[in-house]
Structures are given as structure tokens and as C-alpha cells.
């Protein structure tokens, strides 16, 4: 039912780094089954929508949840599950002995302690004297630019200040692994950027797993991203590779990109399943996989295009007006109008509007292109088989009014080849 | 309240009254012959409320039943509590026609308050006895044994009639008790003894009689040094301005006569009370 499960997560970590976190665990009640490795000094962002299992993953690592099967190992030590040395024994290391710090969405500063004593809590628990612990706490407060808040009570802090203290407190306990659970989700949009910059600085060379549903966090902080959906990892790899060249619908959604799948043809990609003109789209940029594998004609291909680069029209001449003098080779069997557009170098896809969603100063028009559900008047995509593919366009509200767009309307989605990137989909 | 009771009893169904009257005559023939104070001729009717000391619970319940049988058309409502509680209740306006106290002191309090309509009459006496758990595990024989070191004796607090009597006996005998507890009621003393918490307790003869198997009584000669006298008197409802009581002075007098008469004295003697 869920085809993305067929994608086997490769457990490769960032090259040239030793694995420190080795997790392969399942929690039946939550339909959770994940294998994840994190290298020492690496920051991994775990992306996914609510309910994808991100928090379950963190709780398993932090020791707040026991896996039904599998194991959790950190720096060669088994924290949960069976060990190689004694497979019969079931190991369980309680949270306080794991060397794993957790910073949640809410900073959860202890309300009865001052800011300084909050940060000193970790060192104090590790057996440091009150004086030493406070000295360490001051260093970390300095590190997060919050030394002046030392004597304040948590109740008197703003959300951004509290989260800074939360970061300092988590780091002051000197964890082998730091877990961040949506660290910016509870913050005003205005204060998040400063905190993000601060985190980027202090997390440098630390081993971190950061859970987020914001790609900006991932771009800013992570060496690698892991995309989760329905309790499983659906995609993972270097941050830019995954987020700029998504290979699953889920990743594309997170990265706010349109993802079209098809087969590589000369100069572009066919969405129709064959290599003919039907459903052919053209991409100017061709990206190869990170490993530099070959990307021959006929190979499975994916294409990413931003919704803001897609425009909508109801008559093809509207698109034709935008046609430039440059054009790619056209297929003579197409209708004249389509041929004109294609020869103008514009990708035109027939589709049906699904819904309209106002987003600030633009309206996102979501539709389906290709597939048997799409009625073809001109036959440009009439021969396309299989399910339609989702495509979204961000257009001005005036366009929605002028074209009288509403769900069910037959439209053309078009975009410049230059706005699309094509890459191997597997 | 009083008026409600009167109307209930005064329901004037002539036939019913006639039938009851016949029955009453028959009963009177057997029982009331001995009624000294209340000559068989003067018939009484109506309802009265009697406030009686807690130690009179069983005897007065029996006496009320017999009184009602002997005097058809009458009803006796009983209220039992500690004597001092009853005095408080009456002074606060509780409806009472007759007050039977476990000591003269509480009766005097009511008299001082001007709430008695006549003189109090002593109708019974009570003496202390030693109550021990069944089998007498501590082997107590007489009053002096109660002062033995290590023995757990419980007594009534001096504020209570039974406690005052205890103090009187101590004074008379020169034996000073070291009680482990001075309880607030006879019931509490008996409870401590019957449960075996205490080795012995000092209570009235009648209390031991009423307690049945749960405690054993050991009488002692010095008990005569403190004889507790029970007085009874009619309450004057007008005295406290509350108009309490039924106002049925005739019936109240009849009940008092009944208690001090032969039937009353027999019932009291059976329960262990002494003569007044």
C-alpha cells in the first residue's frame, strides 16, 4: 500500500566519519521501524510531518521509550536491546546514564531554579561541586549570549531567551549526543533566525540529531537529512542532495518542490512512460546523482520545479504569448498549437485544478497533470497512461480571478525548462 | 412539636376511645392496683417527653412501655444522653416534661436555672464496681489492687458523675489511683476494658449489668463511700421562655410517681440500681 517502503534506506553516514549512534529499532504499537546511523561530529536532521515518528525516534535514543525489538548503541555501548557479547541479556541503560541530552520544543526550564542553576543542573548531576557547576554554566551562558540572564527566573524570560538557556543547559551536561526536538517551533518567527545562527555555531563538530519539519533548520544545521513518513525512513542523504533533488513525494512536500517522475529521454523526461513526445518535458539542468552514477537515456528520472516557476493558463495561446524565440526540437506529430509552444521551449502540461489555497500574496493552485483522469482536448497528453502526477503553481490572485479558476477546471500548467532540474530518481 | 403530638393522641374517635378505655380498665385491674401515688381513679392522657441519663436507657425504656400499658391514651417519648448534655439541651429550649438525672449536681443546675416545676425526688442509687475483662487476666480482687504498679486502670474523668464518685472513694480509702486514661463517658471506660486494652475500669454496677458477657464486675466494700443518687423532677417549660414540653403537668407527675412506685422500683432493682 505504501510504495515508499520499498525504498531501502541506505545507512551510509557522511563519508570518512565513524559511526557513533547505531539504531535499528521497532515499536510495534506506533508502527515504527527505523534503522539510523549517525557519525561522530555529524548533525543529522530528521524531517517529516506530524506523526511521522520523529519524536518516537528521539525518545528511543534518549531512553524515554523502550524498543520492542532491535537495539540502540552509542559510541560502541549498547543502550537498549541485545549486545553482541551476550545476546541473551536484554540491556536497558536508563536516560541519566546515556550521555544523551534532549532539548524539546518547549525549553522546559525548571521554574524553581534560576537561569544559572538551570544550566548548572547537568554538571551538578554529574557530581561537580556547586561552584564548579556554576562556573561551567557561566561558560555556556556566555556561549549562547545570555550571561546577563544568569540570575533571572525562567518565568521572566521570553520564548527566545528561554530556548537559548535550554541550549546552554543541554550543552553544559556535555552530552555525547545532543537531541533537538523542533527547537524553533515554539518561537516567534522574528527570533528564530538569530537562534538558528547561534545553534549553527555551537553545534559545530558536535554529534546532533535535530528533529524538525522546517527545511530551513535542515539547510542551516544539518550535514545530512533523514526524511520520515509513517514510522519509517523514506529518504536520506546529504542535506542539499536530498532537499534539492527529492526522490519521494514526501521529501518534495517538505522541500516545497514539485516532483515529477518519468523516464529520461534526449533533452528531457517523458512522463508518458515511453520515450516519444507524449508527456515529454524538457529540463535545462541535468543533475547527476551524488555518487556520479551514469544517467542514461531510458533511466528512471525525477524532475524538481518550484511552484513559483509554474504558471497557469486556460488557452494555449496564453502560454504562446510567453514563448521565446529559442526552441527545442519539436515532435511533428503533435497538434500545431502544442508544437508551437514546445518549439518555443516551454513545458506545457494539461491538467485539472484540485484546489486553491491562498498563501499570503499568492494563491497556490494544486492540480493533477497526466494520467487517464485528465481529459485531453488537444491530445498533448492524451496518450499518457498511469496515474496523474501532482503539480502546484503559485499565481497572483488576479490570475485566479481572470481565469475564473475553481476546482475541477481544465487548465494548462507551464514552466520554463530553466526552472526545472532533472536527476536520476533512484 | 408538642402540639403535633397532642393532636395525634387526642384524636377523638369516640368508639376507639371507648374500646381503649375498656382495655385500660382490664389492664389497670391487674397492674395498677399497686400504683400508690397515682390512684386508679384519676385517668391521665396525652404525651410527655422524658429526658433521662444515659445509664437509665434500658430501665426507662422498659418503664415507659409499662407506663403506657397501664395508662392507655398516653405516650412517653424518651431522650437519653449524658446528664450534663441533657441539662444543656433543656436550658437551650429542648422540649422536656421530665428530667431524670444520674446525679444531684446536674439536677441542681436545672433547679438553679428555674426550670423545675416541683421538687426533685430521688428514685434510685448506683454504686461503683470494678469492671474487668472476662476471666480477669490481671487477677484483681479489691479496690486497692487497682493501684498496683503497671496495672492499666481506666476511670471516668472527674467532671463526670462516675468520675466524681471515683474521686470520693479514693479520698475515703486513701488509695490513689494512677489511671492510664480518664474517659469522657462510661461507654468509653467499658470499651477499653472489654477490648482488653485496660486491665480494669471503674463503672457503675448497672453498667456492668447492662454490658452482659463482655465484662465481669467485681464488687468491693469501699463502694459505699460514694453512692450516686438519681433524682427525677418535672420540668417547667415556661421557665426558659421557650414554652417547651407538652405542658401536661398531670401526666408528668403520674410518670414520676410511676418511677418512684413499686413497678419502677422493681425494674430499677432488676437492673442493679440500689434504693434511693
Amino acid at each position, binding site marked *: 500500500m505504501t510504495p515508499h517502503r520499498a525504498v531501502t534506506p541506505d545507512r551510509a553516514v557522511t563519508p570518512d566519519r565513524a559511526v557513533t549512534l547505531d539504531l535499528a529499532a521497532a515499536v510495534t504499537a506506533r508502527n515504527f521501524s527505523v534503522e539510523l546511523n549517525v557519525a561522530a561530529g555529524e548533525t543529522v536532521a530528521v524531517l517529516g510531518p506530524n506523526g511521522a515518528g520523529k519524536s518516537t525516534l528521539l525518545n528511543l535514543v534518549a531512553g524515554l521509550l523502550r524498543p520492542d525489538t532491535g537495539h540502540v548503541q552509542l559510541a560502541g555501548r549498547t543502550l537498549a536491546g541485545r549486545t553482541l557479547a551476550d545476546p541473551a541479556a536484554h540491556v536497558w541503560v536508563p*536516560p541519566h546514564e546515556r550521555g544523551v541530552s534532549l532539548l524539546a520544543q518547549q525549553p522546559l526550564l525548571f521554574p524553581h531554579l534560576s537561569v544559572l542553576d538551570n544550566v548548572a*543542573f547537568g554538571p551538578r548531576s554529574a557530581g561537580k561541586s556547586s561552584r564548579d557547576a556554576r562556573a561551567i554554566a557561566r561558560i555556556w551562558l556566555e556561549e549562547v549570549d545570555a550571561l546577563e540572564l544568569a540570575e533571572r527566573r525562567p518565568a521572566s524570560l521570553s520564548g527566545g531567551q528561554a530556548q537559548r538557556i535550554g541550549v546552554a543547559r543541554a550543552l553544559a551536561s556535555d552530552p555525547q549526543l545532543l537531541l533537538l526536538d523542533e527547537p524553533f517551533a*515554539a518561537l516567534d518567527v522574528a527570533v528564530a533566525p538569530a537562534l538558528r545562527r547561534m545553534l549553527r555555531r555551537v553545534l559545530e563538530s558536535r554529534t546532533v540529531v535535530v528533529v524538525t519539519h522546517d527545511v530551513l533548520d535542515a539547510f542551516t544545521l544539518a550535514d545530512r537529512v533523514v526524511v520520515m513518513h509513517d514510522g519509517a525512513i523514506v529518504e536520506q542523504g546529504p542535506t542539499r542532495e536530498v532537499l534539492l533533488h527529492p526522490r519521494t513525494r514526501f521529501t518534495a512536500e517538505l522541500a*516545497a518542490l514539485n516532483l515529477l517522475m518519468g523516464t529520461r529521454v534526449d533533452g528531457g523526461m517523458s512522463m508518458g512512460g515511453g520515450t516519444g513526445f507524449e508527456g515529454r518535458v524538457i529540463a535545462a539542468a541535468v543533475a547527476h546523482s551524488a555518487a556520479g552514477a551514469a544517467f542514461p537515456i531510458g533511466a528512471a528520472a525525477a524532475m524538481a520545479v518550484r511552484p513559483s516557476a509554474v504558471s497557469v493558463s486556460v488557452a494555449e495561446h496564453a502560454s504562446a504569448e510567453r514563448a521565446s524565440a529559442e526552441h527545442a526540437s519539436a515532435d511533428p506529430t503533435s497538434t500545431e498549437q502544442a508544437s508551437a509552444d514546445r518549439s518555443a521551449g516551454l513545458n506545457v502540461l494539461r491538467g485539472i485544478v484540485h484546489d486553491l489555497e491562498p498563501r499570503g500574496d499568492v494563491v497556490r493552485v494544486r492540480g493533477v497533470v497526466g494520467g487517464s483522469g485528465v481529459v485531453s482536448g488537444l491530445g498533448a497528453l492524451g496518450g499518457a497512461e498511469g496515474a496523474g502526477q501532482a503539480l502546484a503553481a503559485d499565481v497572483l490572485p488576479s490570475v485566479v480571478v481572470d481565469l475564473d479558476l475553481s476546482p475541477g477546471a481544465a487548465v494548462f500548467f507551464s514552466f520554463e525548462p530553466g526552472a526545472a532540474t532533472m536527476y536520476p530518481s533512484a | 412539636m408538642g402540639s403535633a403530638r397532642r393532636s395525634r393522641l387526642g384524636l377523638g374517635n369516640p368508639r376507639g376511645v371507648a374500646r381503649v378505655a375498656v382495655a385500660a380498665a382490664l389492664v389497670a385491674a391487674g397492674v395498677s392496683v399497686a400504683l400508690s401515688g397515682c390512684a386508679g381513679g384519676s385517668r391521665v392522657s396525652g404525651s410527655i417527653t422524658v429526658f433521662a441519663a444515659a445509664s437509665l436507657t434500658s430501665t426507662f425504656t422498659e418503664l415507659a412501655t409499662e407506663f403506657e400499658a397501664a395508662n392507655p391514651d398516653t405516650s412517653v417519648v424518651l431522650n437519653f444522653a449524658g446528664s450534663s448534655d441533657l441539662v444543656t439541651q433543656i436550658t437551650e429550649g429542648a422540649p422536656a416534661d421530665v428530667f431524670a438525672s444520674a446525679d444531684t449536681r446536674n439536677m441542681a443546675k436545672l433547679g438553679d436555672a428555674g426550670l423545675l416545676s416541683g421538687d426533685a425526688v430521688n428514685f434510685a442509687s448506683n454504686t461503683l464496681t470494678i469492671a474487668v475483662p472476662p476471666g480477669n487476666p490481671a487477677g484483681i480482687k479489691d479496690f486497692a489492687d487497682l493501684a498496683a504498679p503497671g496495672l492499666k486502670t481506666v476511670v471516668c474523668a472527674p467532671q463526670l458523675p462516675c468520675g466524681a464518685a471515683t474521686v470520693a472513694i479514693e479520698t475515703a480509702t486513701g488509695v490513689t489511683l494512677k489511671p492510664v486514661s480518664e474517659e469522657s463517658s462510661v461507654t468509653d471506660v467499658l470499651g477499653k476494658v472489654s477490648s482488653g486494652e485496660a486491665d480494669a475500669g471503674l463503672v457503675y454496677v448497672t453498667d456492668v449489668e447492662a454490658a452482659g458477657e463482655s465484662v465481669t464486675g467485681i464488687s468491693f466494700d469501699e463502694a459505699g463511700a460514694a453512692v450516686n443518687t438519681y433524682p427525677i423532677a418535672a420540668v417547667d417549660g415556661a421557665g426558659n421562655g421557650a414554652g417547651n414540653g407538652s405542658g401536661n403537668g398531670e401526666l408528668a407527675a403520674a410518670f414520676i410517681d410511676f418511677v418512684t412506685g413499686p413497678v419502677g422500683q422493681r425494674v430499677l432493682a432488676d437492673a442493679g440500681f440500689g434504693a434511693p
Partner: protein
Amino acid sequence: MLGLPRWVGIVASVGALFIVLPLVAMITRVNWPEFGALVTSESSVAALGLSLRTSVVSTALCVVLGVPLALLLARTQFAGQKVLRALVLLPLVLPPVVGGIALLYTFGRRGLLGSTLEVLGIQIAFSTTAVVIAQTFVALPFLVLSLEGALRTVGTRYEAVAATLGAKPTTVLLRVTLPLVLPALISGAMLSFARALGEFGATLTFAGSLQGVTRTLPLEIYLQRETDPDAAVALSLVLVLVAVVVVGLSRGVSERRGSERGGSERSLSERRLSERDQPARGMPL
């Protein structure tokens, strides 16, 4: 303010009068010229002193026994937990005399534990210890109830954070959990103290009544009624005043807790606010 139906105020006034009027009535009966002498008599001072001493010890016992009990009820799950909770709260609804009888059969000379203790040379009946036991028995549920509720309200999130910062379970308990529920602990302890102070039935049944040893203030009042109603009323007033002070202090603590909650309330609304912004960033296409 939102208007309430007028009749609510009227019925509420009747309810308030129902509580206040008897107290006022009692105060009108106080023999003021003698008041000082009545409450400073040897027996009164002995009773008040005993009551305060035993109530303090009982309250301490309630804290020592009640905190682990509340933790067990609030933080763990085990078979029979509901039954245990119901049983622990039983003294709240049990007539004190019944509690006294139960204690008698437990710690009494011939009781379940009493006979063993007697062999060891420990005698509880008729001792001040018996008073403390009776008071603890009836006061413990107040502390457990108040603390368990607070523990559930606070939740385990702070404890989880403390654990991931490396704090051992005992450290978490002492430095995080208990400080977080301290206001509830204090108000619970005060209610327990007030309940212990007012304990009468179980003490009367189980401990006896002897000046300076087992005769607490309520027992003294009960006894004084026999001969000296003025003294009983004067001592009742003293007990009422002590209770008012204790309940007032307890209320003060819980109100302070309420205002501290205000701080986290604010951050909660901040979170709501930003969660509203959230979909704009992670919204699916």
C-alpha cells in the same frame, strides 16, 4: 463581568451563612471577661500544647509516608492501583470512631501488631504515640490526595529533561519533582495538620484521655462541656482560630502557586501563536 442569575447570589449567601452563622453564634456565647483565664488554665494549656505537638509530629509522618505513596499512585502503574488509591482515601469518608476501632484492633494490646509490639516492650495504647497514630491515620489522605493531583498536573516532562541531563532518579525527585510540587506539598501538609488538630473520634476510641498524655484539645473541649461550658466555648474558639490560620496559610500557598502557573501559561500561549504560523512553512504542496 458576566452576569450570574440573581438567585445564585441569594442561595450562595444562604450557603455562606450556613457556615458562618454557627461560628458567630459560638462567639456570642464566649465569656469574654473570663476568656483569658479559661484558655490559660492548666488543663487547657496542657491540651493545646499536646494537640500542637502531636499534630506537628503527625504532619511530619504524613509527609514521610504520603510523598512516596503519592508518587507511587501518580507515577507508576501496577495491578490493584485503583484499589490502593480507594483504600488510601478511605479515612476521609470513614467515621472517625470506626477508624479508632480499626486502629484498636491493629495497635491495641490484643491487636494485629499490638501483641507483637507488647512482646518487644512497646506499648501504644494510652500513650501519646497512640494519639499520633490516630491523627496520622485520618490526616494522611489529605496529603496524598493533594500531592497526587499536583504530580499529575505537573507531568513528567521536566523529569524526563532532568534525566537526560544526567540526573539520577533520586536527584530528579529531590531537585526537580518535589520542588515543582512544593506548593501542593505545603498546602497538603497544612490541611493534614488541620485535620490532625481536629481529630477526636479515633483518638477517643483508640488512645484514651489523660491530661498531658492523650487528652488533646478536642477531647478537652468535649470533657469541659460536662462541668464548664464556658471553658468549652472558649477552647472551641481557640481551635477555630488555629484552624482559620492554617486554612488561610494553605490557601495563600496555593494562590501563590496559581500566580507562578501564570508564567508557564504565557509561554503556552506563545506556543499556540507560533503553531498557528507553523503550517505556512511545512505545508504540503
